[in-house]
C-alpha cells in the first residue's frame, strides 16, 4: 500500500470492518490504522451503534432451556479480572505527593488481592447455590427444606460445580426431556439434572448408569420429578472414557441395565 493512499484506503474499509465483513489479515491491518486515527475510531464507534440496531431488529425469543444452561455455566465460570488501574497508572511524577501516591497504590495492591480472592471464592459458592436453585427450580421455602436434607450431597455438588475443569453438557432424552450435566474429571464426579422427563408408571423408575472401560456401574435411581425438574443427582467414580446412560428400570432398580438406553452422553 502506498503511503499516500493508505489513509484513504484504510478509511474506506470502515464499513466492512464495522460489519465484520473483513478477513483476519485485513482486520489486523485496519486495527493498526485505527489505533493511530482518532477520527476513524469515532466513525467506527458510530457505525457499530448502527450495526447494533440492525442486530437488535433481528431479535427473536430464546429457545427453551438456553437461559438455564447459560446461568448454570456462568455459575461455574470464573470472571476475567478488570484491568489493574494500579499497574496501568503512569509512573507518578516526582513531587510532594509522589511518595504518598506510590505508598497508597502499593497498599491498595496488597489489600486488594487477598480480599478479591476471598470474595471470589464466596461468590463462586453463592453462584453455585444460585445455579442449583435456577436449574432445579428452587423458588420457595419447601424446596429449602429439601435442600437442607440434601446438605451432604449439595456439598458434593458444590465441589463439582466449582471445580476448575467443570463443564456442562446437555442431551435429549429419548421419550422426552432434556438432561443437563455438569462434570469434572478432576473431581471424578458429575451432577445430573433433567427437565421435562416423561412421567413413568409407579412400577418403573429412571436409573442412571456410568458405562465405560471400567465396566457398567449403577449410579442411582432418579428421584421423582417436581414441577418438571428432576435431580440434582451426583454421580461419583467417574472415569475417563465413561458414558452416562439413562434407562427406565423396574422401580427397585438393578445392577445392569435391562431397558433401552434413553440417553447416552460421552463424558
Amino acid at each position: 500500500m502506498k503511503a499516500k493512499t493508505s489513509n484513504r484506503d484504510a478509511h474506506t474499509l470502515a464499513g466492512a470492518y464495522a460489519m465484520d465483513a473483513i478477513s483476519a489479515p485485513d482486520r489486523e491491518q485496519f486495527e493498526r490504522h485505527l489505533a493511530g486515527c482518532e477520527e476513524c475510531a469515532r466513525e467506527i464507534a458510530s457505525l457499530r451503534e448502527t450495526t447494533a440496531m440492525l442486530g437488535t431488529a433481528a431479535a427473536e425469543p430464546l429457545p427453551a432451556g438456553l437461559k438455564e444452561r447459560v446461568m448454570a455455566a456462568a455459575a461455574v465460570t470464573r470472571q476475567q479480572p478488570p484491568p489493574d488501574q494500579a499497574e496501568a497508572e503512569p509512573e507518578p511524577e516526582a513531587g510532594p505527593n509522589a511518595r504518598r501516591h506510590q505508598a497508597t497504590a502499593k497498599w491498595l495492591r496488597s489489600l486488594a488481592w487477598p480480599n478479591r480472592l476471598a470474595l471470589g471464592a464466596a461468590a463462586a459458592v453463592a453462584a453455585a447455590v444460585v445455579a442449583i436453585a435456577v436449574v432445579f427450580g428452587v423458588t420457595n421455602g419447601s424446596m429449602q427444606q429439601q435442600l437442607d436434607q440434601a446438605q451432604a450431597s449439595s456439598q458434593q455438588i458444590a465441589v463439582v460445580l466449582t471445580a476448575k475443569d467443570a463443564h456442562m453438557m446437555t442431551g435429549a432424552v429419548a421419550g422426552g426431556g432434556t438432561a443437563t450435566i455438569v462434570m469434572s474429571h478432576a473431581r471424578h464426579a458429575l451432577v445430573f439434572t433433567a427437565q421435562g422427563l416423561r412421567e413413568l408408571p409407579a412400577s418403573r423408575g429412571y436409573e442412571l448408569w456410568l458405562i465405560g472401560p471400567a465396566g457398567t456401574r449403577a449410579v442411582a435411581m432418579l428421584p421423582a420429578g417436581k414441577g418438571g425438574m428432576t435431580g440434582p443427582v451426583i454421580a461419583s467414580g467417574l472415569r475417563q472414557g465413561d458414558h452416562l446412560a439413562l434407562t427406565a428400570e423396574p422401580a427397585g432398580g438393578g445392577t445392569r441395565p435391562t431397558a433401552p438406553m434413553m440417553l447416552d452422553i460421552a463424558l
Partner: protein
Amino acid sequence: MTAPGSHRPRPQTHPASARNPASARNPASARNTDSARNPASEASDLAAQLGLVARGDGAAYDAVFEQVGPAVFGVVKRVIRDLAQSEEVTQEVLLEIWRNAAKFDATRGSATAWVMTLAHRRAVDRVRSVQKESDRERRTAAADIPYDEVVEAVESSLERERVRRCLNSLTEVQRESVTLAYYRGYTYGQVASLLGVPTGTVKTRMRDALIRLRDCLGVDQ
C-alpha cells in the same frame, strides 16, 4: 464528521426509542417507570448493569440476559442459520458477557453496541471456521439467495419497521452489501463476487450505506 452520503440535519424522531427496541416489548423493563418513559436511560441502565455483572452480581446478569439475550440469539441465527450451532454460539456469547463484563468500557460505545459486536463477530467467526470444509457447498447455496429476504423477514414492530424503512432508503447495491455482509456474514470480497462488482466498489458502498443508515436511524455521533 463529514462524509459523502451523510444527510444533515439528521432526522430527530425519538432516536433513543429506536435504539432500545426492548423497551417497548419487554414488560420487565416497564418496572422502572423512569426507563419506560425515557428509553435512553435504559441504555445507560444496561451499562450500569454490566458494571454490576463485572462484580459478580447474579441478579444484574439475569437482567442483562433478559435485555440482550433475544437480540444476541436473533443476530447469531441470522448469520449461522443452523439452529443447533446458533444456540451454541449464543450460549458462548452470553457466557462471554459474564466472563468479560469488566472489559466493557462505556467511553468507547454503548453497552448494546458492545454486546452486539461481540455476538456478530462470534457468529461470523463460527461461519468462517467451518467455511473451508464447505466452501463449494456455500458457493452453490449463495447463488440462490434472495437478497431482500432478510429485509422481508424483519417483522413489524415500530423499531423493526424503522430499521426496515432505513434499509429500504438505501440504493439496491448498498442494501444488498449490508444484508449480505451483516446478516449473512460474508466478507466484502465475497460480496463483491456475489454482486459481480469490484471490491473497491463494495468497500465504498458498505461505508456509504452504514453512514446513511446511521443518519436515518438517528445514531448519535
